[in-house]
Protein backbone atom coordinates (compact mmCIF):
# COMPACT_ATOMS: atom_id res chain seq x y z
CA UNK A 1 0.00 0.00 0.00
CA UNK A 2 1.23 3.51 -0.77
CA UNK A 3 1.09 6.28 1.80
CA UNK A 4 -1.83 8.68 1.96
CA UNK A 5 -3.12 11.46 4.19
CA UNK A 6 -6.00 10.26 6.32
CA UNK A 7 -8.80 12.74 6.84
CA UNK A 8 -11.56 11.60 9.21
CA UNK A 9 -14.79 13.57 8.97
CA UNK A 10 -17.79 13.96 11.26
CA UNK A 11 -20.30 15.80 9.06
CA UNK A 12 -21.53 15.60 5.48
CA UNK A 13 -20.56 19.21 5.01
CA UNK A 14 -17.01 18.57 6.09
CA UNK A 15 -16.72 15.56 3.80
CA UNK A 16 -18.16 17.48 0.84
CA UNK A 17 -15.79 20.33 1.32
CA UNK A 18 -12.76 18.00 1.50
CA UNK A 19 -13.72 15.96 -1.52
CA UNK A 20 -14.44 19.07 -3.57
CA UNK A 21 -11.00 20.30 -2.60
CA UNK A 22 -9.11 17.13 -3.57
CA UNK A 23 -11.35 15.65 -6.27
CA UNK A 24 -9.47 12.91 -8.16
CA UNK A 25 -6.60 13.03 -5.70
CA UNK A 26 -8.97 12.12 -2.91
CA UNK A 27 -11.03 9.05 -2.31
CA UNK A 28 -13.97 8.50 -0.02
CA UNK A 29 -13.54 5.69 2.50
CA UNK A 30 -16.65 4.23 4.09
CA UNK A 31 -16.39 0.59 5.25
CA UNK A 32 -13.51 0.03 2.87
CA UNK A 33 -14.39 -3.63 2.29
CA UNK A 34 -13.39 -3.44 -1.36
CA UNK A 35 -11.40 -0.21 -1.31
CA UNK A 36 -8.70 -1.47 1.03
CA UNK A 37 -8.06 -4.46 -1.21
CA UNK A 38 -7.55 -2.10 -4.15
CA UNK A 39 -5.25 0.09 -2.07
CA UNK A 40 -3.25 -2.89 -0.93
CA UNK A 41 -2.82 -4.10 -4.46
CA UNK A 42 -1.75 -0.57 -5.41
CA UNK A 43 -4.37 -0.51 -8.12
CA UNK A 44 -5.41 2.86 -6.82
CA UNK A 45 -3.23 5.20 -4.82
CA UNK A 46 -5.06 8.33 -3.73
CA UNK A 47 -3.11 11.00 -1.90
CA UNK A 48 -5.99 11.73 0.46
CA UNK A 49 -8.38 9.28 2.02
CA UNK A 50 -11.49 10.99 3.34
CA UNK A 51 -13.03 8.71 5.95
CA UNK A 52 -16.76 9.23 6.23
CA UNK A 53 -17.52 6.21 8.40
CA UNK A 54 -17.65 8.46 11.45
CA UNK A 55 -20.48 10.63 10.06
CA UNK A 56 -23.31 9.59 12.36
CA UNK A 57 -25.93 11.57 10.43
CA UNK A 58 -25.51 9.07 7.57
CA UNK A 59 -26.31 6.03 9.64
CA UNK A 60 -30.05 5.50 10.01
CA UNK A 61 -33.04 3.48 8.91
CA UNK A 62 -36.44 5.18 9.00
CA UNK A 63 -39.81 4.20 7.67
CA UNK A 64 -43.25 5.68 7.33
CA UNK A 65 -46.13 4.50 5.18
CA UNK A 66 -46.22 7.71 3.17
CA UNK A 67 -42.57 8.17 2.31
CA UNK A 68 -41.39 4.63 2.55
CA UNK A 69 -37.93 3.62 3.69
CA UNK A 70 -34.91 5.85 4.07
CA UNK A 71 -31.46 4.41 4.72
CA UNK A 72 -28.38 6.47 5.36
CA UNK A 73 -25.51 5.51 3.08
CA UNK A 74 -23.43 4.38 6.05
CA UNK A 75 -25.98 1.84 7.22
CA UNK A 76 -24.10 -1.43 7.45
CA UNK A 77 -25.24 -4.54 5.66
CA UNK A 78 -25.68 -6.17 9.01
CA UNK A 79 -27.98 -3.38 10.20
CA UNK A 80 -30.18 -3.88 7.14
CA UNK A 81 -30.20 -7.63 7.65
CA UNK A 82 -31.24 -7.27 11.28
CA UNK A 83 -33.62 -4.30 11.00
CA UNK A 84 -37.10 -5.34 12.23
CA UNK A 85 -38.84 -2.86 9.95
CA UNK A 86 -36.95 -4.12 6.91
CA UNK A 87 -37.65 -7.72 7.86
CA UNK A 88 -41.31 -6.83 8.07
CA UNK A 89 -41.77 -4.52 5.11
CA UNK A 90 -38.94 -5.39 2.74
CA UNK A 91 -38.18 -8.96 3.61
CA UNK A 92 -36.36 -9.53 0.34
CA UNK A 93 -33.68 -7.07 1.49
CA UNK A 94 -32.98 -8.77 4.80
CA UNK A 95 -32.94 -12.17 3.09
CA UNK A 96 -30.63 -10.84 0.38
CA UNK A 97 -28.31 -9.30 2.95
CA UNK A 98 -27.84 -12.68 4.60
CA UNK A 99 -25.92 -13.73 1.55
CA UNK A 100 -23.76 -10.63 1.12
CA UNK A 101 -20.12 -11.72 1.45
CA UNK A 102 -19.52 -12.74 5.07
CA UNK A 103 -20.74 -11.58 8.47
CA UNK A 104 -17.42 -9.80 8.98
CA UNK A 105 -17.87 -7.80 5.78
CA UNK A 106 -21.51 -7.09 6.55
CA UNK A 107 -20.57 -5.79 9.98
CA UNK A 108 -18.18 -3.18 8.66
CA UNK A 109 -19.22 -2.64 5.06
CA UNK A 110 -21.89 -0.08 4.23
CA UNK A 111 -24.72 -0.10 1.74
CA UNK A 112 -23.53 3.18 0.23
CA UNK A 113 -20.02 1.90 -0.16
CA UNK A 114 -21.30 -1.24 -1.80
CA UNK A 115 -23.34 0.69 -4.37
CA UNK A 116 -20.52 3.14 -5.11
CA UNK A 117 -18.00 0.37 -5.73
CA UNK A 118 -20.39 -0.73 -8.52
CA UNK A 119 -19.18 -4.28 -8.65
CA UNK A 120 -21.31 -5.92 -11.33
CA UNK A 121 -21.81 -8.94 -9.11
CA UNK A 122 -22.77 -6.95 -6.01
CA UNK A 123 -25.80 -8.39 -4.20
CA UNK A 124 -27.82 -5.39 -3.05
CA UNK A 125 -28.27 -3.48 -6.32
CA UNK A 126 -30.66 -5.88 -8.09
CA UNK A 127 -33.10 -6.07 -5.18
CA UNK A 128 -32.96 -2.35 -4.59
CA UNK A 129 -33.66 -1.69 -8.25
CA UNK A 130 -36.52 -4.17 -8.17
CA UNK A 131 -37.90 -2.22 -5.20
CA UNK A 132 -37.66 1.03 -7.26
CA UNK A 133 -34.92 2.54 -5.11
CA UNK A 134 -33.78 6.09 -5.53
CA UNK A 135 -30.55 7.51 -4.23
CA UNK A 136 -29.62 10.90 -2.95
CA UNK A 137 -26.34 12.41 -4.02
CA UNK A 138 -24.85 15.56 -2.56
CA UNK A 139 -21.85 17.74 -3.16
CA UNK A 140 -20.85 21.23 -2.16
CA UNK A 141 -22.62 22.27 -5.36
CA UNK A 142 -25.98 20.95 -4.19
CA UNK A 143 -27.92 17.72 -4.23
CA UNK A 144 -30.07 15.50 -6.42
CA UNK A 145 -32.11 12.34 -6.25
CA UNK A 146 -31.97 9.80 -9.07
CA UNK A 147 -33.31 6.30 -9.63
CA UNK A 148 -30.72 3.70 -8.66
CA UNK A 149 -31.40 2.12 -12.01
CA UNK A 150 -29.55 4.98 -13.70
CA UNK A 151 -26.66 5.15 -11.27
CA UNK A 152 -24.45 2.45 -12.73
CA UNK A 153 -22.76 3.21 -16.01
CA UNK A 154 -20.14 0.50 -16.46
CA UNK A 155 -18.06 -2.07 -14.63
CA UNK A 156 -17.11 -0.46 -11.32
CA UNK A 157 -18.29 2.88 -12.64
CA UNK A 158 -21.16 5.13 -11.59
CA UNK A 159 -22.54 8.56 -12.41
CA UNK A 160 -20.90 9.92 -9.28
CA UNK A 161 -18.70 12.92 -10.01
CA UNK A 162 -15.36 13.09 -8.17
CA UNK A 163 -16.74 15.63 -5.69
CA UNK A 164 -20.05 13.90 -4.98
CA UNK A 165 -21.13 11.67 -2.12
CA UNK A 166 -23.98 9.19 -2.04
CA UNK A 167 -25.93 9.92 1.14
CA UNK A 168 -29.22 8.10 1.16
CA UNK A 169 -31.16 5.22 -0.33
CA UNK A 170 -34.91 5.67 -0.61
CA UNK A 171 -37.51 3.00 -1.18
CA UNK A 172 -41.19 3.67 -1.79
CA UNK A 173 -43.73 2.04 0.49
CA UNK A 174 -44.49 -1.54 -0.43
CA UNK A 175 -47.26 -1.88 -2.98
CA UNK A 176 -50.17 -4.23 -2.31
CA UNK A 177 -50.22 -7.63 -4.02
CA UNK A 178 -46.50 -7.48 -4.67
CA UNK A 179 -43.98 -10.26 -4.26
CA UNK A 180 -40.26 -9.59 -4.48
CA UNK A 181 -37.55 -12.24 -4.51
CA UNK A 182 -33.80 -12.39 -4.89
CA UNK A 183 -32.13 -15.46 -6.28
CA UNK A 184 -28.60 -16.19 -7.26
CA UNK A 185 -26.56 -18.93 -8.79
CA UNK A 186 -23.03 -19.81 -7.83
CA UNK A 187 -21.06 -23.04 -7.84
CA UNK A 188 -20.81 -23.11 -4.07
CA UNK A 189 -23.21 -21.56 -1.62
CA UNK A 190 -21.11 -18.49 -0.86
CA UNK A 191 -19.26 -18.57 -4.14
CA UNK A 192 -18.85 -15.92 -6.73
CA UNK A 193 -22.13 -15.21 -8.47
CA UNK A 194 -22.51 -16.47 -11.98
CA UNK A 195 -25.95 -14.92 -12.31
CA UNK A 196 -28.29 -13.21 -9.91
CA UNK A 197 -31.75 -11.81 -10.31
CA UNK A 198 -34.29 -9.91 -8.32
CA UNK A 199 -37.88 -9.95 -9.40
CA UNK A 200 -40.82 -7.89 -8.34
CA UNK A 201 -44.29 -8.95 -9.40
CA UNK A 202 -47.36 -6.85 -8.64
CA UNK A 203 -50.72 -8.47 -9.28
CA UNK A 204 -54.11 -7.02 -10.00
CA UNK A 205 -56.71 -7.68 -7.33
CA UNK A 206 -57.66 -10.91 -9.13
CA UNK A 207 -54.29 -12.16 -7.93
CA UNK A 208 -53.59 -13.74 -11.31
CA UNK A 209 -53.03 -10.87 -13.67
CA UNK A 210 -49.70 -9.17 -13.70
CA UNK A 211 -49.99 -5.46 -13.13
CA UNK A 212 -46.30 -4.75 -13.10
CA UNK A 213 -43.17 -6.86 -13.33
CA UNK A 214 -39.58 -5.87 -12.77
CA UNK A 215 -36.97 -8.37 -13.79
CA UNK A 216 -33.58 -7.16 -12.65
CA UNK A 217 -30.48 -9.13 -13.48
CA UNK A 218 -26.87 -8.88 -12.50
CA UNK A 219 -23.52 -10.50 -13.22
CA UNK A 220 -24.66 -10.88 -16.82
CA UNK A 221 -23.81 -7.37 -18.04
CA UNK A 222 -21.47 -4.56 -17.03
CA UNK A 223 -24.17 -3.20 -14.72
CA UNK A 224 -27.25 -4.59 -13.02
CA UNK A 225 -30.20 -3.86 -15.26
CA UNK A 226 -33.94 -4.05 -15.49
CA UNK A 227 -34.93 -6.34 -18.34
CA UNK A 228 -37.72 -4.09 -19.52
CA UNK A 229 -38.86 -6.11 -22.53
CA UNK A 230 -39.49 -9.10 -20.34
CA UNK A 231 -41.24 -6.98 -17.73
CA UNK A 232 -43.41 -5.31 -20.34
CA UNK A 233 -44.33 -8.65 -21.81
CA UNK A 234 -45.82 -9.73 -18.52
CA UNK A 235 -47.68 -6.56 -17.66
CA UNK A 236 -51.42 -6.90 -18.11
CA UNK A 237 -51.32 -10.66 -18.75
CA UNK A 238 -52.50 -13.58 -16.70
CA UNK A 239 -49.49 -15.33 -15.28
CA UNK A 240 -49.00 -18.94 -16.29
CA UNK A 241 -46.06 -21.21 -17.04
CA UNK A 242 -45.97 -20.28 -20.71
CA UNK A 243 -45.83 -16.59 -19.97
CA UNK A 244 -43.14 -17.13 -17.39
CA UNK A 245 -41.07 -19.17 -19.82
CA UNK A 246 -41.46 -16.55 -22.49
CA UNK A 247 -40.47 -13.74 -20.13
CA UNK A 248 -37.45 -15.68 -18.91
CA UNK A 249 -36.38 -16.30 -22.47
CA UNK A 250 -36.71 -12.62 -23.31
CA UNK A 251 -34.84 -11.61 -20.20
CA UNK A 252 -31.98 -13.93 -20.98
CA UNK A 253 -31.77 -12.44 -24.45
CA UNK A 254 -31.37 -9.01 -22.91
CA UNK A 255 -28.20 -10.07 -21.11
CA UNK A 256 -24.73 -9.24 -22.36
CA UNK A 257 -22.51 -11.56 -20.37
CA UNK A 258 -18.75 -11.81 -20.53
CA UNK A 259 -17.03 -15.16 -20.28
CA UNK A 260 -14.60 -15.51 -17.40
CA UNK A 261 -12.91 -18.06 -15.23
CA UNK A 262 -16.23 -19.04 -13.65
CA UNK A 263 -18.50 -19.45 -16.65
CA UNK A 264 -18.85 -18.89 -20.36
CA UNK A 265 -21.18 -16.30 -21.75
CA UNK A 266 -23.52 -18.99 -23.10
CA UNK A 267 -23.74 -20.73 -19.76
CA UNK A 268 -24.51 -17.45 -18.01
CA UNK A 269 -27.30 -16.80 -20.46
CA UNK A 270 -28.77 -20.25 -19.92
CA UNK A 271 -28.62 -19.95 -16.18
CA UNK A 272 -30.17 -16.50 -16.38
CA UNK A 273 -33.09 -18.07 -18.18
CA UNK A 274 -33.54 -20.81 -15.58
CA UNK A 275 -33.05 -18.49 -12.65
CA UNK A 276 -35.47 -15.85 -13.89
CA UNK A 277 -38.07 -18.52 -14.53
CA UNK A 278 -37.73 -19.86 -11.01
CA UNK A 279 -37.64 -16.43 -9.45
CA UNK A 280 -40.77 -15.25 -11.28
CA UNK A 281 -42.63 -18.31 -10.07
CA UNK A 282 -41.56 -17.62 -6.54
CA UNK A 283 -42.39 -13.93 -6.74
CA UNK A 284 -45.79 -14.80 -8.19
CA UNK A 285 -46.52 -17.10 -5.28
CA UNK A 286 -45.44 -14.44 -2.84
CA UNK A 287 -47.53 -11.80 -4.57
CA UNK A 288 -50.63 -13.97 -4.36
CA UNK A 289 -50.53 -13.89 -0.60
CA UNK A 290 -49.12 -10.39 -0.14
Amino acid at each position, binding site marked *: *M*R*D*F*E*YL*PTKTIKEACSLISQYKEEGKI*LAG*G*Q*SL*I*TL*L*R*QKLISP*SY*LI*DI*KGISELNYITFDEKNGLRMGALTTH*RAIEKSPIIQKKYNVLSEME*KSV*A*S*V*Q*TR*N*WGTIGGNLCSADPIGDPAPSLIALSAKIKIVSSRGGKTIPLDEFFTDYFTTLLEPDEILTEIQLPSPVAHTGVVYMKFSTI*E*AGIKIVSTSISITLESDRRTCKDAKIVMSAVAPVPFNAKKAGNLMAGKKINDDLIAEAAQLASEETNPTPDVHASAEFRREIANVLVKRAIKQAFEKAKIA
Partner: protein
Amino acid sequence: MEIAKKILKVKVNGRPYEMLIKPKTTLLQLLRNDLGLTGAKQACMDNSCGACTVIVDKMAVKACSVLALQVNGREVTTVEGLASRDGKLHPLQQTFLDFHAFQCGFCTPGKLMSAKAMLDENLHPNEEDIRRDMEGNLCRCTGYKQYIDAIKAVAQKKEGAK
Protein backbone atom coordinates in the same frame (compact mmCIF):
# COMPACT_ATOMS: atom_id res chain seq x y z
CA MET B 1 5.98 13.20 0.26
CA GLU B 2 6.51 12.44 3.94
CA ILE B 3 3.13 11.51 5.40
CA ALA B 4 2.46 12.63 8.95
CA LYS B 5 1.69 9.90 11.42
CA LYS B 6 -1.60 10.08 13.24
CA ILE B 7 -2.50 9.45 16.85
CA LEU B 8 -4.54 6.35 17.52
CA LYS B 9 -6.30 5.67 20.80
CA VAL B 10 -7.66 2.20 21.08
CA LYS B 11 -8.41 -0.40 23.70
CA VAL B 12 -7.15 -3.86 22.85
CA ASN B 13 -8.15 -6.77 25.05
CA GLY B 14 -9.04 -4.30 27.76
CA ARG B 15 -5.74 -2.43 27.68
CA PRO B 16 -5.68 1.17 26.48
CA TYR B 17 -3.08 2.14 23.90
CA GLU B 18 -2.13 5.52 22.53
CA MET B 19 0.30 5.54 19.66
CA LEU B 20 1.48 7.25 16.51
CA ILE B 21 0.94 5.24 13.35
CA LYS B 22 1.12 5.63 9.59
CA PRO B 23 -2.36 6.13 8.14
CA LYS B 24 -1.96 3.16 5.83
CA THR B 25 -1.52 0.75 8.74
CA THR B 26 -4.31 -1.82 8.72
CA LEU B 27 -5.82 -3.06 11.94
CA LEU B 28 -4.16 -6.42 11.28
CA GLN B 29 -0.74 -4.80 10.87
CA LEU B 30 -1.29 -2.82 14.04
CA LEU B 31 -2.13 -5.93 16.04
CA ARG B 32 0.57 -8.15 14.60
CA ASN B 33 3.45 -5.76 14.04
CA ASP B 34 2.96 -2.97 16.55
CA LEU B 35 1.34 -4.83 19.43
CA GLY B 36 2.89 -8.26 18.87
CA LEU B 37 -0.52 -9.94 18.97
CA THR B 38 0.05 -12.50 16.24
CA GLY B 39 -3.05 -14.61 16.89
CA ALA B 40 -4.93 -13.00 13.99
CA LYS B 41 -3.36 -14.20 10.75
CA GLN B 42 -3.03 -13.06 7.18
CA ALA B 43 -3.77 -15.84 4.72
CA CYS B 44 -5.17 -14.02 1.70
CA MET B 45 -4.86 -10.54 0.30
CA ASP B 46 -8.42 -9.87 -0.62
CA ASN B 47 -10.79 -10.04 2.28
CA SER B 48 -11.83 -13.60 1.56
CA CYS B 49 -10.44 -16.02 4.16
CA GLY B 50 -11.37 -14.71 7.62
CA ALA B 51 -8.13 -15.80 9.32
CA CYS B 52 -7.67 -12.23 10.54
CA THR B 53 -11.08 -11.95 12.22
CA VAL B 54 -11.14 -9.92 15.44
CA ILE B 55 -13.96 -8.28 17.34
CA VAL B 56 -14.43 -4.51 17.22
CA ASP B 57 -17.13 -3.25 19.57
CA LYS B 58 -18.91 -6.62 19.59
CA MET B 59 -18.72 -7.03 15.81
CA ALA B 60 -16.58 -9.61 14.06
CA VAL B 61 -14.54 -7.85 11.37
CA LYS B 62 -11.68 -8.79 9.11
CA ALA B 63 -8.72 -6.89 10.48
CA CYS B 64 -6.94 -6.94 7.10
CA SER B 65 -9.68 -4.81 5.56
CA VAL B 66 -10.07 -2.16 8.24
CA LEU B 67 -7.63 0.70 8.69
CA ALA B 68 -6.25 0.94 12.19
CA LEU B 69 -7.29 4.59 12.38
CA GLN B 70 -10.87 3.54 11.72
CA VAL B 71 -11.00 1.85 15.11
CA ASN B 72 -9.91 5.00 16.89
CA GLY B 73 -11.78 5.23 20.18
CA ARG B 74 -13.14 1.70 19.85
CA GLU B 75 -12.53 -1.56 21.66
CA VAL B 76 -10.81 -4.48 19.97
CA THR B 77 -10.78 -8.06 21.20
CA THR B 78 -8.40 -10.62 19.75
CA VAL B 79 -7.97 -14.31 20.43
CA GLU B 80 -5.32 -13.37 23.01
CA GLY B 81 -8.06 -11.70 25.03
CA LEU B 82 -10.44 -14.63 24.98
CA ALA B 83 -9.24 -16.74 27.90
CA SER B 84 -9.13 -15.28 31.36
CA ARG B 85 -5.76 -14.35 32.81
CA ASP B 86 -5.86 -17.11 35.42
CA GLY B 87 -5.50 -19.67 32.66
CA LYS B 88 -9.15 -20.62 32.35
CA LEU B 89 -10.17 -21.15 28.75
CA HIS B 90 -13.23 -19.48 27.28
CA PRO B 91 -16.04 -22.05 26.79
CA LEU B 92 -15.49 -21.85 23.03
CA GLN B 93 -11.79 -22.60 23.42
CA GLN B 94 -12.51 -25.47 25.80
CA THR B 95 -15.09 -26.96 23.48
CA PHE B 96 -12.87 -26.57 20.41
CA LEU B 97 -10.26 -28.48 22.40
CA ASP B 98 -12.70 -31.21 23.41
CA PHE B 99 -14.07 -31.59 19.87
CA HIS B 100 -10.74 -31.55 17.98
CA ALA B 101 -12.24 -28.57 16.19
CA PHE B 102 -8.91 -27.46 14.73
CA GLN B 103 -5.92 -29.07 13.06
CA CYS B 104 -3.17 -26.82 11.75
CA GLY B 105 -4.68 -24.03 13.82
CA PHE B 106 -3.80 -21.21 11.45
CA CYS B 107 -7.39 -20.16 10.87
CA THR B 108 -8.55 -21.08 14.37
CA PRO B 109 -8.15 -17.68 16.09
CA GLY B 110 -10.31 -16.12 13.37
CA LYS B 111 -12.93 -18.80 13.75
CA LEU B 112 -13.04 -18.43 17.51
CA MET B 113 -13.62 -14.71 17.19
CA SER B 114 -16.36 -15.14 14.59
CA ALA B 115 -18.00 -17.73 16.79
CA LYS B 116 -17.74 -15.57 19.88
CA ALA B 117 -19.33 -12.58 18.16
CA MET B 118 -22.09 -14.80 16.84
CA LEU B 119 -22.88 -16.40 20.18
CA ASP B 120 -22.74 -13.08 22.00
CA GLU B 121 -25.37 -11.76 19.62
CA ASN B 122 -27.47 -14.79 18.83
CA LEU B 123 -28.43 -16.87 21.82
CA HIS B 124 -30.04 -19.72 19.98
CA PRO B 125 -28.28 -20.35 16.69
CA ASN B 126 -29.34 -23.48 14.86
CA GLU B 127 -26.93 -25.37 12.65
CA GLU B 128 -27.88 -23.37 9.60
CA ASP B 129 -27.26 -20.09 11.44
CA ILE B 130 -23.87 -21.34 12.51
CA ARG B 131 -22.86 -22.42 9.04
CA ARG B 132 -24.06 -19.18 7.52
CA ASP B 133 -22.33 -17.06 10.10
CA MET B 134 -19.10 -19.02 9.64
CA GLU B 135 -19.11 -18.68 5.83
CA GLY B 136 -16.46 -15.99 6.08
CA ASN B 137 -13.93 -18.31 7.70
CA LEU B 138 -12.14 -20.59 5.31
CA CYS B 139 -10.65 -23.83 6.55
CA ARG B 140 -8.69 -26.44 4.66
CA CYS B 141 -7.87 -28.96 7.40
CA THR B 142 -10.97 -29.72 9.38
CA GLY B 143 -13.64 -29.99 6.74
CA TYR B 144 -15.60 -27.65 9.02
CA LYS B 145 -17.69 -30.31 10.72
CA GLN B 146 -15.95 -30.58 14.06
CA TYR B 147 -15.96 -26.90 14.77
CA ILE B 148 -19.56 -26.44 13.68
CA ASP B 149 -20.42 -29.21 16.12
CA ALA B 150 -18.32 -27.51 18.80
CA ILE B 151 -20.07 -24.17 18.36
CA LYS B 152 -23.41 -25.92 18.44
CA ALA B 153 -22.45 -27.58 21.71
CA VAL B 154 -21.41 -24.28 23.27
CA ALA B 155 -24.70 -22.72 22.22
CA GLN B 156 -26.67 -25.59 23.67
CA LYS B 157 -24.73 -25.46 26.90
CA LYS B 158 -25.43 -21.74 27.14
CA GLU B 159 -29.06 -22.39 26.60
CA GLY B 160 -29.09 -25.15 29.18
CA ALA B 161 -27.49 -22.84 31.73
CA LYS B 162 -30.35 -20.39 31.43
